[in-house]
Protein backbone atom coordinates (compact mmCIF):
# COMPACT_ATOMS: atom_id res chain seq x y z
CA UNK A 1 0.00 0.00 0.00
CA UNK A 2 1.40 3.33 -0.97
CA UNK A 3 0.37 5.66 1.80
CA UNK A 4 0.52 8.63 -0.58
CA UNK A 5 -2.14 6.94 -2.61
CA UNK A 6 -5.58 8.29 -2.95
CA UNK A 7 -8.33 5.70 -2.98
CA UNK A 8 -11.51 6.56 -4.81
CA UNK A 9 -14.44 4.20 -4.36
CA UNK A 10 -18.06 3.99 -3.28
CA UNK A 11 -19.20 3.65 0.31
CA UNK A 12 -20.90 0.60 1.74
CA UNK A 13 -22.54 1.97 4.86
CA UNK A 14 -23.87 0.42 8.05
CA UNK A 15 -25.85 2.96 10.00
CA UNK A 16 -27.64 3.21 13.31
CA UNK A 17 -28.03 0.07 15.41
CA UNK A 18 -26.53 -1.96 12.58
CA UNK A 19 -23.47 0.24 12.38
CA UNK A 20 -22.37 0.48 16.01
CA UNK A 21 -20.41 -2.12 17.98
CA UNK A 22 -19.99 -4.50 15.06
CA UNK A 23 -18.09 -7.22 16.90
CA UNK A 24 -15.52 -9.66 15.59
CA UNK A 25 -17.95 -12.57 16.02
CA UNK A 26 -20.20 -10.82 13.51
CA UNK A 27 -17.34 -10.03 11.17
CA UNK A 28 -16.14 -13.64 11.17
CA UNK A 29 -17.74 -16.19 13.52
CA UNK A 30 -15.30 -18.13 15.72
CA UNK A 31 -16.30 -21.40 14.10
CA UNK A 32 -14.75 -20.28 10.80
CA UNK A 33 -11.54 -18.77 12.11
CA UNK A 34 -9.44 -21.89 12.28
CA UNK A 35 -8.07 -21.85 8.78
CA UNK A 36 -5.20 -20.25 6.90
CA UNK A 37 -7.34 -20.21 3.75
CA UNK A 38 -8.30 -16.55 3.47
CA UNK A 39 -10.79 -17.12 0.65
CA UNK A 40 -12.73 -19.30 3.09
CA UNK A 41 -12.72 -16.42 5.59
CA UNK A 42 -13.94 -14.06 2.89
CA UNK A 43 -16.81 -16.39 2.01
CA UNK A 44 -18.23 -16.13 5.55
CA UNK A 45 -17.46 -12.49 6.28
CA UNK A 46 -20.30 -10.61 8.02
CA UNK A 47 -22.68 -13.51 7.45
CA UNK A 48 -24.54 -13.38 10.80
CA UNK A 49 -25.10 -9.63 10.50
CA UNK A 50 -25.58 -9.22 6.77
CA UNK A 51 -26.05 -12.48 4.86
CA UNK A 52 -26.16 -10.53 1.58
CA UNK A 53 -22.83 -8.80 2.20
CA UNK A 54 -20.66 -11.05 0.10
CA UNK A 55 -23.00 -10.81 -2.88
CA UNK A 56 -23.66 -7.10 -2.67
CA UNK A 57 -20.28 -5.78 -1.66
CA UNK A 58 -18.36 -4.61 -4.71
CA UNK A 59 -14.65 -5.35 -4.23
CA UNK A 60 -12.70 -2.14 -3.86
CA UNK A 61 -15.49 -0.36 -2.01
CA UNK A 62 -15.05 1.42 1.27
CA UNK A 63 -16.79 0.03 4.36
CA UNK A 64 -18.32 2.70 6.58
CA UNK A 65 -19.56 2.03 10.11
CA UNK A 66 -20.36 3.78 13.36
CA UNK A 67 -18.87 3.45 16.84
CA UNK A 68 -16.50 0.80 18.19
CA UNK A 69 -16.06 -1.20 14.99
CA UNK A 70 -14.38 -4.57 15.54
CA UNK A 71 -14.93 -4.94 19.27
CA UNK A 72 -14.55 -8.35 20.88
CA UNK A 73 -11.84 -10.83 20.15
CA UNK A 74 -8.25 -10.37 19.03
CA UNK A 75 -8.73 -12.54 15.95
CA UNK A 76 -6.80 -11.03 13.08
CA UNK A 77 -9.02 -13.16 10.87
CA UNK A 78 -11.59 -10.33 11.17
CA UNK A 79 -9.65 -7.66 9.22
CA UNK A 80 -8.12 -10.39 7.03
CA UNK A 81 -11.61 -11.59 6.03
CA UNK A 82 -12.70 -8.05 5.18
CA UNK A 83 -9.56 -7.39 3.20
CA UNK A 84 -9.92 -10.69 1.37
CA UNK A 85 -13.52 -9.79 0.54
CA UNK A 86 -12.19 -6.71 -1.22
CA UNK A 87 -12.67 -3.98 1.38
CA UNK A 88 -10.20 -1.25 0.42
CA UNK A 89 -10.59 1.03 3.44
CA UNK A 90 -12.70 1.02 6.59
CA UNK A 91 -14.03 4.25 8.00
CA UNK A 92 -15.65 4.26 11.43
CA UNK A 93 -16.44 6.89 14.05
CA UNK A 94 -13.97 4.91 16.16
CA UNK A 95 -12.52 1.40 16.25
CA UNK A 96 -11.97 -1.17 18.96
CA UNK A 97 -8.33 -1.16 19.97
CA UNK A 98 -7.06 -4.57 18.85
CA UNK A 99 -8.98 -4.50 15.57
CA UNK A 100 -7.43 -1.12 14.75
CA UNK A 101 -3.89 -2.39 15.31
CA UNK A 102 -4.59 -5.64 13.45
CA UNK A 103 -5.94 -3.85 10.40
CA UNK A 104 -2.89 -1.59 10.17
CA UNK A 105 -0.60 -4.58 10.75
CA UNK A 106 -2.06 -6.46 7.78
CA UNK A 107 -1.99 -3.34 5.63
CA UNK A 108 -5.72 -2.62 5.58
CA UNK A 109 -6.21 1.15 5.88
CA UNK A 110 -8.57 2.20 8.65
CA UNK A 111 -9.59 5.77 9.38
CA UNK A 112 -11.38 7.18 12.38
CA UNK A 113 -13.75 9.93 11.38
CA UNK A 114 -15.60 10.91 14.57
CA UNK A 115 -18.37 12.86 12.87
CA UNK A 116 -19.62 11.96 9.46
CA UNK A 117 -22.87 11.65 7.55
CA UNK A 118 -21.66 9.48 4.68
CA UNK A 119 -24.55 7.90 2.76
CA UNK A 120 -24.64 4.42 1.25
CA UNK A 121 -23.29 4.54 -2.29
CA UNK A 122 -21.57 7.91 -1.90
CA UNK A 123 -18.36 8.29 -3.89
CA UNK A 124 -15.45 8.88 -1.52
CA UNK A 125 -11.86 9.89 -2.03
CA UNK A 126 -9.52 8.86 0.76
CA UNK A 127 -6.06 10.38 1.17
CA UNK A 128 -4.19 8.22 3.63
CA UNK A 129 -1.13 10.37 4.33
CA UNK A 130 -3.22 13.51 4.88
CA UNK A 131 -5.91 11.55 6.69
CA UNK A 132 -8.78 13.12 4.80
CA UNK A 133 -11.97 11.69 3.37
CA UNK A 134 -13.72 13.65 0.65
CA UNK A 135 -17.37 12.81 0.13
CA UNK A 136 -17.60 13.74 -3.53
CA UNK A 137 -21.32 13.04 -3.70
CA UNK A 138 -22.10 15.39 -0.82
CA UNK A 139 -19.22 17.80 -1.40
CA UNK A 140 -17.86 17.51 2.15
CA UNK A 141 -14.31 16.93 3.39
CA UNK A 142 -13.79 15.07 6.66
CA UNK A 143 -10.60 15.02 8.70
CA UNK A 144 -9.66 11.71 10.28
CA UNK A 145 -8.17 11.41 13.76
CA UNK A 146 -4.36 11.53 13.59
CA UNK A 147 -2.61 8.19 13.95
CA UNK A 148 0.69 7.72 15.80
CA UNK A 149 3.64 8.04 13.42
CA UNK A 150 4.66 4.41 13.91
CA UNK A 151 1.26 3.32 12.60
CA UNK A 152 1.48 5.60 9.59
CA UNK A 153 4.90 4.11 8.85
CA UNK A 154 3.66 0.53 9.21
CA UNK A 155 0.77 1.24 6.87
CA UNK A 156 3.12 2.96 4.43
CA UNK A 157 5.15 -0.24 4.18
CA UNK A 158 1.99 -2.28 3.59
CA UNK A 159 1.83 -3.82 7.06
CA UNK A 160 3.97 -4.95 9.97
CA UNK A 161 5.56 -7.88 8.10
CA UNK A 162 7.11 -5.75 5.33
CA UNK A 163 7.87 -3.04 7.93
CA UNK A 164 9.93 -5.43 10.03
CA UNK A 165 11.50 -7.00 6.94
CA UNK A 166 12.75 -3.52 6.12
CA UNK A 167 13.66 -2.13 9.56
CA UNK A 168 14.19 -5.30 11.64
CA UNK A 169 12.81 -3.52 14.73
CA UNK A 170 10.43 -0.74 15.73
CA UNK A 171 11.66 2.69 14.77
CA UNK A 172 9.98 5.45 16.76
Amino acid sequence: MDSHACIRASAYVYEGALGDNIDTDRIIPGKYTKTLDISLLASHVMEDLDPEFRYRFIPGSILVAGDNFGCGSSREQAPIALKAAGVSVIIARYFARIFFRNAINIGLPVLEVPHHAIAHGAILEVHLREGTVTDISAGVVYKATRMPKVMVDILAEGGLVPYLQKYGDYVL
Partner: protein
Amino acid sequence: MGQTISEKILSAHAGYPVYQGEIAVVHVDGIMATDTTAPYAITAFREIVGKSGRKVWNPSRCALVIDHAAPAPTEKISNLHVMMREFAREQGCPLYDVGSGICHQIMVEEAFVRPGDVFVGADSHTCTYGGLGAFATGVGSTDLAAVMLTGKIWLKVPQTIRIEYTGTLPKGVTAKDLVLFTVGQLSISGATYQAIEYCGSALETLSLSSRMTIANMSAEMGAKTGIVHPTGLTLEFGLRYDWTPVLPDEDAEYVRRYSFDVSALQPQVAVPHSPDNVKDIREVEGTKITYAFIGSCVNARLEDLQQAAHILRGRHIHPNVRLLITPASKNVMLAAVQDGTMQTLLEAGATMTNAACGACVGAHLGIPGDGEVVISTANRNFKGRMGNPNAQIYLSSAAVVAASALTGAITHPAEFL
Protein backbone atom coordinates in the same frame (compact mmCIF):
# COMPACT_ATOMS: atom_id res chain seq x y z
CA MET B 1 4.26 13.48 38.85
CA GLY B 2 2.41 10.49 40.33
CA GLN B 3 1.89 7.34 38.30
CA THR B 4 -0.89 4.81 37.86
CA ILE B 5 -0.11 1.08 38.06
CA SER B 6 0.11 0.87 34.26
CA GLU B 7 2.47 3.84 34.08
CA LYS B 8 4.70 2.31 36.75
CA ILE B 9 4.87 -1.12 35.16
CA LEU B 10 5.40 0.29 31.67
CA SER B 11 8.10 2.69 32.92
CA ALA B 12 9.97 -0.21 34.46
CA HIS B 13 9.84 -2.02 31.12
CA ALA B 14 10.65 1.00 28.94
CA GLY B 15 13.69 1.90 31.00
CA TYR B 16 12.58 5.50 31.62
CA PRO B 17 9.46 7.11 33.15
CA VAL B 18 6.50 7.09 30.78
CA TYR B 19 3.13 8.76 31.15
CA GLN B 20 -0.31 8.43 29.58
CA GLY B 21 -0.55 9.44 25.96
CA GLU B 22 3.11 8.72 25.18
CA ILE B 23 4.11 6.09 22.63
CA ALA B 24 6.71 3.75 24.06
CA VAL B 25 8.53 0.57 23.14
CA VAL B 26 8.56 -1.76 26.15
CA HIS B 27 10.22 -5.08 26.89
CA VAL B 28 7.85 -7.93 27.59
CA ASP B 29 8.24 -10.69 30.16
CA GLY B 30 6.19 -13.28 28.36
CA ILE B 31 3.97 -13.93 25.36
CA MET B 32 1.36 -16.47 24.35
CA ALA B 33 -0.69 -17.53 21.34
CA THR B 34 -3.49 -20.06 20.92
CA ASP B 35 -4.65 -22.32 18.13
CA THR B 36 -6.87 -19.49 16.85
CA THR B 37 -4.05 -16.96 16.66
CA ALA B 38 -0.78 -18.93 16.57
CA PRO B 39 -1.10 -20.26 12.99
CA TYR B 40 -1.26 -16.69 11.62
CA ALA B 41 1.47 -15.56 14.02
CA ILE B 42 3.74 -18.40 12.92
CA THR B 43 3.08 -17.59 9.26
CA ALA B 44 3.84 -13.91 9.84
CA PHE B 45 6.93 -14.80 11.89
CA ARG B 46 8.27 -16.98 9.08
CA GLU B 47 7.59 -14.23 6.55
CA ILE B 48 9.42 -11.60 8.59
CA VAL B 49 12.38 -13.87 9.29
CA GLY B 50 12.63 -15.14 5.73
CA LYS B 51 15.97 -16.83 5.23
CA SER B 52 17.75 -14.75 7.87
CA GLY B 53 17.71 -17.60 10.40
CA ARG B 54 16.51 -15.30 13.22
CA LYS B 55 14.76 -17.18 16.04
CA VAL B 56 12.18 -16.43 18.72
CA TRP B 57 13.82 -13.87 21.03
CA ASN B 58 13.46 -16.00 24.14
CA PRO B 59 11.76 -19.35 23.49
CA SER B 60 11.23 -20.15 27.16
CA ARG B 61 9.02 -17.03 27.47
CA CYS B 62 6.89 -17.80 24.40
CA ALA B 63 4.06 -20.24 25.11
CA LEU B 64 1.76 -21.87 22.62
CA VAL B 65 -1.55 -23.29 23.83
CA ILE B 66 -3.97 -25.60 22.02
CA ASP B 67 -7.27 -24.75 23.67
CA HIS B 68 -9.76 -23.09 21.31
CA ALA B 69 -10.63 -26.23 19.35
CA ALA B 70 -9.16 -29.02 21.43
CA PRO B 71 -9.18 -31.88 20.73
CA ALA B 72 -9.42 -31.02 17.05
CA PRO B 73 -12.94 -31.43 15.63
CA THR B 74 -11.78 -31.55 11.98
CA GLU B 75 -8.69 -32.61 10.07
CA LYS B 76 -8.02 -29.02 8.97
CA ILE B 77 -7.83 -27.85 12.56
CA SER B 78 -5.75 -30.88 13.48
CA ASN B 79 -3.27 -29.81 10.81
CA LEU B 80 -3.02 -26.37 12.39
CA HIS B 81 -2.26 -28.06 15.70
CA VAL B 82 0.49 -30.06 13.99
CA MET B 83 1.91 -26.80 12.65
CA MET B 84 2.03 -25.40 16.21
CA ARG B 85 3.72 -28.49 17.60
CA GLU B 86 6.36 -28.39 14.88
CA PHE B 87 7.04 -24.71 15.44
CA ALA B 88 7.33 -25.21 19.19
CA ARG B 89 9.80 -28.05 18.72
CA GLU B 90 11.85 -26.16 16.16
CA GLN B 91 12.07 -22.99 18.28
CA GLY B 92 12.18 -24.65 21.70
CA CYS B 93 8.96 -22.97 22.94
CA PRO B 94 6.79 -24.64 25.58
CA LEU B 95 3.58 -26.01 24.09
CA TYR B 96 0.51 -26.83 26.14
CA ASP B 97 -1.27 -29.48 24.17
CA VAL B 98 -4.86 -30.75 24.04
CA GLY B 99 -6.28 -31.27 27.52
CA SER B 100 -4.02 -28.82 29.38
CA GLY B 101 -6.72 -26.20 29.59
CA ILE B 102 -7.45 -22.57 28.71
CA CYS B 103 -4.41 -20.44 27.86
CA HIS B 104 -5.10 -17.77 30.51
CA GLN B 105 -5.48 -20.23 33.34
CA ILE B 106 -2.30 -22.01 32.28
CA MET B 107 -0.24 -18.81 32.04
CA VAL B 108 -1.08 -18.00 35.67
CA GLU B 109 -0.83 -21.57 37.00
CA GLU B 110 2.55 -22.13 35.36
CA ALA B 111 3.91 -18.79 36.65
CA PHE B 112 4.42 -17.68 33.08
CA VAL B 113 3.14 -14.32 34.25
CA ARG B 114 3.76 -12.69 37.62
CA PRO B 115 2.71 -9.51 39.41
CA GLY B 116 4.28 -6.42 37.85
CA ASP B 117 5.03 -8.13 34.51
CA VAL B 118 4.26 -6.88 31.04
CA PHE B 119 2.60 -9.75 29.19
CA VAL B 120 1.34 -9.78 25.62
CA GLY B 121 -1.04 -12.49 24.47
CA ALA B 122 -2.66 -13.12 21.13
CA ASP B 123 -6.08 -13.34 22.75
CA SER B 124 -8.32 -10.52 23.86
CA HIS B 125 -8.76 -11.92 27.39
CA THR B 126 -5.05 -11.74 28.14
CA CYS B 127 -6.13 -8.90 30.46
CA THR B 128 -7.13 -11.69 32.89
CA TYR B 129 -3.64 -11.48 34.43
CA GLY B 130 -4.54 -8.07 35.78
CA GLY B 131 -6.04 -10.17 38.57
CA LEU B 132 -2.45 -10.91 39.49
CA GLY B 133 -1.38 -7.27 39.23
CA ALA B 134 0.32 -7.61 35.83
CA PHE B 135 0.01 -5.29 32.82
CA ALA B 136 -1.34 -7.81 30.34
CA THR B 137 -2.87 -6.96 27.01
CA GLY B 138 -4.30 -8.74 24.00
CA VAL B 139 -2.98 -8.30 20.47
CA GLY B 140 -3.50 -9.92 17.10
CA SER B 141 -1.30 -12.46 15.37
CA THR B 142 1.03 -10.18 13.41
CA ASP B 143 1.73 -8.01 16.45
CA LEU B 144 2.52 -11.20 18.34
CA ALA B 145 4.87 -12.37 15.58
CA ALA B 146 6.75 -9.09 15.96
CA VAL B 147 7.06 -9.57 19.72
CA MET B 148 8.21 -13.17 19.18
CA LEU B 149 11.07 -11.78 17.20
CA THR B 150 11.99 -8.66 19.16
CA GLY B 151 10.80 -9.30 22.73
CA LYS B 152 9.33 -5.81 22.60
CA ILE B 153 6.10 -4.09 21.67
CA TRP B 154 5.21 -0.52 20.86
CA LEU B 155 2.16 0.84 22.59
CA LYS B 156 0.47 3.99 23.72
CA VAL B 157 0.61 4.36 27.49
CA PRO B 158 -3.07 4.32 28.39
CA GLN B 159 -5.09 6.68 30.50
CA THR B 160 -6.61 4.91 33.48
CA ILE B 161 -10.14 4.66 34.85
CA ARG B 162 -10.25 4.02 38.59
CA ILE B 163 -13.16 1.98 39.94
CA GLU B 164 -13.53 1.62 43.68
CA TYR B 165 -15.81 -0.94 45.33
CA THR B 166 -16.90 -0.53 48.93
CA GLY B 167 -19.06 -2.68 51.20
CA THR B 168 -19.23 -6.47 51.21
CA LEU B 169 -20.74 -8.75 48.57
CA PRO B 170 -23.97 -10.37 49.85
CA LYS B 171 -24.23 -14.15 50.09
CA GLY B 172 -24.58 -15.83 46.70
CA VAL B 173 -23.27 -12.72 44.92
CA THR B 174 -19.86 -13.17 43.32
CA ALA B 175 -17.01 -11.41 41.56
CA LYS B 176 -18.79 -12.24 38.29
CA ASP B 177 -21.86 -10.28 39.37
CA LEU B 178 -19.63 -7.39 40.36
CA VAL B 179 -17.92 -7.28 36.98
CA LEU B 180 -21.13 -7.84 34.98
CA PHE B 181 -22.61 -4.90 36.87
CA THR B 182 -19.53 -2.84 35.98
CA VAL B 183 -19.73 -3.75 32.28
CA GLY B 184 -23.39 -2.70 32.37
CA GLN B 185 -22.43 0.66 33.88
CA LEU B 186 -19.47 1.45 31.63
CA SER B 187 -20.78 -0.21 28.41
CA ILE B 188 -18.99 -2.28 25.81
CA SER B 189 -16.93 0.69 24.65
CA GLY B 190 -16.65 2.44 28.02
CA ALA B 191 -12.93 1.88 28.46
CA THR B 192 -11.71 1.72 24.85
CA TYR B 193 -7.95 2.42 24.65
CA GLN B 194 -7.87 2.90 28.42
CA ALA B 195 -6.69 0.88 31.40
CA ILE B 196 -8.89 0.12 34.38
CA GLU B 197 -7.75 -0.08 37.98
CA TYR B 198 -10.12 -1.99 40.25
CA CYS B 199 -9.67 -1.22 43.92
CA GLY B 200 -11.44 -0.77 47.24
CA SER B 201 -12.19 -2.65 50.43
CA ALA B 202 -14.71 -5.01 48.75
CA LEU B 203 -11.92 -6.53 46.65
CA GLU B 204 -9.24 -6.89 49.29
CA THR B 205 -10.46 -10.25 50.58
CA LEU B 206 -11.13 -11.74 47.14
CA SER B 207 -9.24 -14.83 45.96
CA LEU B 208 -6.89 -14.69 43.00
CA SER B 209 -9.50 -16.67 41.02
CA SER B 210 -12.13 -13.98 41.68
CA ARG B 211 -9.68 -11.22 40.84
CA MET B 212 -8.99 -12.94 37.52
CA THR B 213 -12.75 -13.07 36.87
CA ILE B 214 -12.96 -9.31 37.31
CA ALA B 215 -9.86 -8.46 35.26
CA ASN B 216 -11.00 -10.85 32.51
CA MET B 217 -14.08 -8.83 31.59
CA SER B 218 -12.07 -5.62 31.17
CA ALA B 219 -12.04 -6.83 27.57
CA GLU B 220 -15.83 -6.46 27.45
CA MET B 221 -15.41 -2.73 28.12
CA GLY B 222 -12.80 -2.36 25.38
CA ALA B 223 -9.96 -1.79 27.86
CA LYS B 224 -6.32 -2.26 26.98
CA THR B 225 -5.76 -3.81 30.37
CA GLY B 226 -7.56 -4.10 33.72
CA ILE B 227 -5.58 -4.39 36.92
CA VAL B 228 -6.91 -5.27 40.35
CA HIS B 229 -4.91 -3.49 43.07
CA PRO B 230 -2.76 -6.28 44.54
CA THR B 231 -3.69 -5.24 48.08
CA GLY B 232 -4.58 -8.45 49.91
CA LEU B 233 -3.57 -10.67 47.00
CA THR B 234 -2.66 -14.24 47.99
CA LEU B 235 -1.22 -16.66 45.46
CA GLU B 236 -3.29 -19.72 44.58
CA PHE B 237 -2.98 -22.84 42.39
CA GLY B 238 0.01 -24.00 44.44
CA LEU B 239 2.07 -21.03 43.22
CA ARG B 240 5.10 -20.06 45.26
CA TYR B 241 7.34 -17.15 44.34
CA ASP B 242 8.37 -13.83 45.79
CA TRP B 243 6.77 -10.73 44.42
CA THR B 244 6.42 -7.05 45.22
CA PRO B 245 3.06 -5.33 44.79
CA VAL B 246 2.94 -2.42 42.35
CA LEU B 247 0.47 0.18 43.61
CA PRO B 248 -0.38 3.59 42.17
CA ASP B 249 0.95 6.83 43.62
CA GLU B 250 -1.42 8.93 45.72
CA ASP B 251 -1.32 11.69 43.11
CA ALA B 252 -1.67 9.45 40.06
CA GLU B 253 -3.81 10.99 37.37
CA TYR B 254 -7.05 9.21 36.42
CA VAL B 255 -9.25 10.02 33.46
CA ARG B 256 -12.43 9.02 35.35
CA ARG B 257 -13.31 7.67 38.77
CA TYR B 258 -16.24 5.55 39.83
CA SER B 259 -17.28 4.30 43.22
CA PHE B 260 -19.79 1.50 43.80
CA ASP B 261 -21.13 0.14 47.07
CA VAL B 262 -21.66 -3.59 46.47
CA SER B 263 -23.49 -4.35 49.73
CA ALA B 264 -26.91 -4.53 48.08
CA LEU B 265 -25.77 -5.97 44.74
CA GLN B 266 -28.01 -8.72 43.37
CA PRO B 267 -26.89 -11.42 40.93
CA GLN B 268 -26.48 -9.87 37.49
CA VAL B 269 -27.36 -11.33 34.10
CA ALA B 270 -26.26 -10.09 30.66
CA VAL B 271 -29.07 -10.69 28.18
CA PRO B 272 -28.69 -11.27 24.40
CA HIS B 273 -26.78 -10.13 22.34
CA SER B 274 -24.21 -8.02 24.15
CA PRO B 275 -22.28 -8.41 27.40
CA ASP B 276 -23.26 -4.87 28.45
CA ASN B 277 -26.99 -5.61 28.26
CA VAL B 278 -26.89 -6.24 31.98
CA LYS B 279 -29.95 -6.67 34.18
CA ASP B 280 -30.64 -7.39 37.79
CA ILE B 281 -31.63 -11.06 38.07
CA ARG B 282 -35.12 -10.06 39.30
CA GLU B 283 -35.89 -8.70 35.83
CA VAL B 284 -35.13 -11.96 34.01
CA GLU B 285 -36.04 -14.60 36.57
CA GLY B 286 -38.27 -17.28 35.10
CA THR B 287 -36.82 -17.08 31.57
CA LYS B 288 -36.87 -20.71 30.39
CA ILE B 289 -33.49 -22.26 29.51
CA THR B 290 -32.52 -25.63 28.06
CA TYR B 291 -28.75 -25.39 28.09
CA ALA B 292 -26.56 -24.46 31.05
CA PHE B 293 -22.82 -23.96 30.57
CA ILE B 294 -20.11 -23.56 33.18
CA GLY B 295 -16.84 -22.87 31.45
CA SER B 296 -14.45 -20.29 29.93
CA CYS B 297 -11.53 -18.25 31.21
CA VAL B 298 -13.79 -15.99 33.25
CA ASN B 299 -15.49 -18.60 35.46
CA ALA B 300 -14.35 -22.23 35.33
CA ARG B 301 -11.90 -22.40 38.20
CA LEU B 302 -12.26 -24.58 41.27
CA GLU B 303 -14.15 -21.91 43.23
CA ASP B 304 -16.75 -21.71 40.44
CA LEU B 305 -17.17 -25.48 40.28
CA GLN B 306 -17.46 -25.54 44.06
CA GLN B 307 -20.10 -22.81 43.98
CA ALA B 308 -22.11 -24.89 41.51
CA ALA B 309 -21.58 -28.10 43.48
CA HIS B 310 -22.77 -26.38 46.64
CA ILE B 311 -26.09 -25.65 44.94
CA LEU B 312 -26.38 -28.97 43.10
CA ARG B 313 -25.40 -31.25 46.00
CA GLY B 314 -28.02 -33.98 46.51
CA ARG B 315 -30.22 -32.53 43.75
CA HIS B 316 -30.69 -33.30 40.07
CA ILE B 317 -30.88 -30.92 37.13
CA HIS B 318 -34.22 -30.29 35.39
CA PRO B 319 -35.16 -32.94 32.77
CA ASN B 320 -35.31 -30.29 30.00
CA VAL B 321 -31.81 -29.02 30.72
CA ARG B 322 -28.35 -30.24 29.90
CA LEU B 323 -25.57 -28.89 32.07
CA LEU B 324 -22.16 -28.81 30.41
CA ILE B 325 -19.06 -28.19 32.48
CA THR B 326 -15.70 -27.41 30.89
CA PRO B 327 -13.06 -26.81 33.57
CA ALA B 328 -10.44 -24.12 33.01
CA SER B 329 -7.48 -26.47 33.26
CA LYS B 330 -6.42 -30.01 33.96
CA ASN B 331 -5.20 -28.86 37.38
CA VAL B 332 -8.63 -27.43 38.16
CA MET B 333 -10.15 -30.73 37.09
CA LEU B 334 -7.79 -32.72 39.30
CA ALA B 335 -8.51 -30.51 42.28
CA ALA B 336 -12.24 -30.98 41.68
CA VAL B 337 -11.75 -34.74 41.60
CA GLN B 338 -9.73 -34.67 44.81
CA ASP B 339 -12.20 -32.64 46.87
CA GLY B 340 -15.31 -34.48 45.66
CA THR B 341 -16.69 -31.53 43.64
CA MET B 342 -16.53 -33.55 40.45
CA GLN B 343 -18.59 -36.38 41.88
CA THR B 344 -21.26 -34.01 43.16
CA LEU B 345 -21.55 -32.36 39.77
CA LEU B 346 -21.71 -35.60 37.83
CA GLU B 347 -24.28 -37.08 40.20
CA ALA B 348 -26.43 -34.00 39.73
CA GLY B 349 -26.54 -34.72 36.01
CA ALA B 350 -23.70 -32.58 34.64
CA THR B 351 -21.68 -33.57 31.58
CA MET B 352 -17.97 -32.96 31.97
CA THR B 353 -15.70 -32.15 28.99
CA ASN B 354 -11.93 -31.92 28.81
CA ALA B 355 -10.39 -28.63 29.94
CA ALA B 356 -10.46 -26.16 27.01
CA CYS B 357 -12.32 -23.14 25.67
CA GLY B 358 -15.02 -25.54 24.54
CA ALA B 359 -18.50 -24.18 23.96
CA CYS B 360 -17.45 -20.60 24.76
CA VAL B 361 -16.18 -19.93 21.26
CA GLY B 362 -18.58 -22.14 19.31
CA ALA B 363 -16.07 -24.34 17.52
CA HIS B 364 -17.39 -27.58 19.06
CA LEU B 365 -18.04 -29.24 22.46
CA GLY B 366 -21.62 -28.05 22.79
CA ILE B 367 -23.08 -25.81 20.10
CA PRO B 368 -26.67 -24.78 20.93
CA GLY B 369 -29.54 -25.52 18.56
CA ASP B 370 -31.84 -22.99 16.85
CA GLY B 371 -34.02 -21.09 19.28
CA GLU B 372 -32.26 -22.52 22.31
CA VAL B 373 -31.79 -20.36 25.37
CA VAL B 374 -28.45 -20.74 27.10
CA ILE B 375 -27.37 -19.60 30.55
CA SER B 376 -23.59 -19.45 30.57
CA THR B 377 -20.70 -18.38 32.78
CA ALA B 378 -18.70 -17.13 29.78
CA ASN B 379 -17.87 -13.51 29.02
CA ARG B 380 -19.44 -12.93 25.61
CA ASN B 381 -22.95 -13.41 24.29
CA PHE B 382 -22.61 -11.82 20.88
CA LYS B 383 -24.92 -13.21 18.24
CA GLY B 384 -23.44 -16.45 16.94
CA ARG B 385 -20.84 -16.55 19.70
CA MET B 386 -21.45 -20.18 20.66
CA GLY B 387 -21.64 -21.25 17.03
CA ASN B 388 -25.31 -20.60 16.30
CA PRO B 389 -26.71 -17.12 15.56
CA ASN B 390 -30.21 -18.43 16.32
CA ALA B 391 -29.46 -19.15 19.97
CA GLN B 392 -29.99 -16.73 22.86
CA ILE B 393 -27.13 -16.50 25.33
CA TYR B 394 -27.48 -15.15 28.87
CA LEU B 395 -24.36 -14.60 31.00
CA SER B 396 -24.15 -15.02 34.76
CA SER B 397 -22.16 -16.46 37.65
CA ALA B 398 -21.72 -20.21 38.17
CA ALA B 399 -24.17 -20.01 41.08
CA VAL B 400 -26.93 -18.64 38.83
CA VAL B 401 -26.15 -21.22 36.13
CA ALA B 402 -26.38 -24.06 38.66
CA ALA B 403 -29.64 -22.80 40.18
CA SER B 404 -31.12 -22.32 36.70
CA ALA B 405 -30.06 -25.83 35.65
CA LEU B 406 -32.10 -27.17 38.57
CA THR B 407 -35.31 -25.32 37.72
CA GLY B 408 -35.11 -25.01 33.92
CA ALA B 409 -35.46 -21.23 34.16
CA ILE B 410 -33.20 -18.36 35.21
CA THR B 411 -33.21 -18.58 38.99
CA HIS B 412 -31.78 -16.61 41.91
CA PRO B 413 -29.29 -18.91 43.65
CA ALA B 414 -30.47 -17.81 47.11
CA GLU B 415 -33.28 -20.38 46.85
CA PHE B 416 -30.71 -23.13 47.08
CA LEU B 417 -28.14 -21.69 49.46
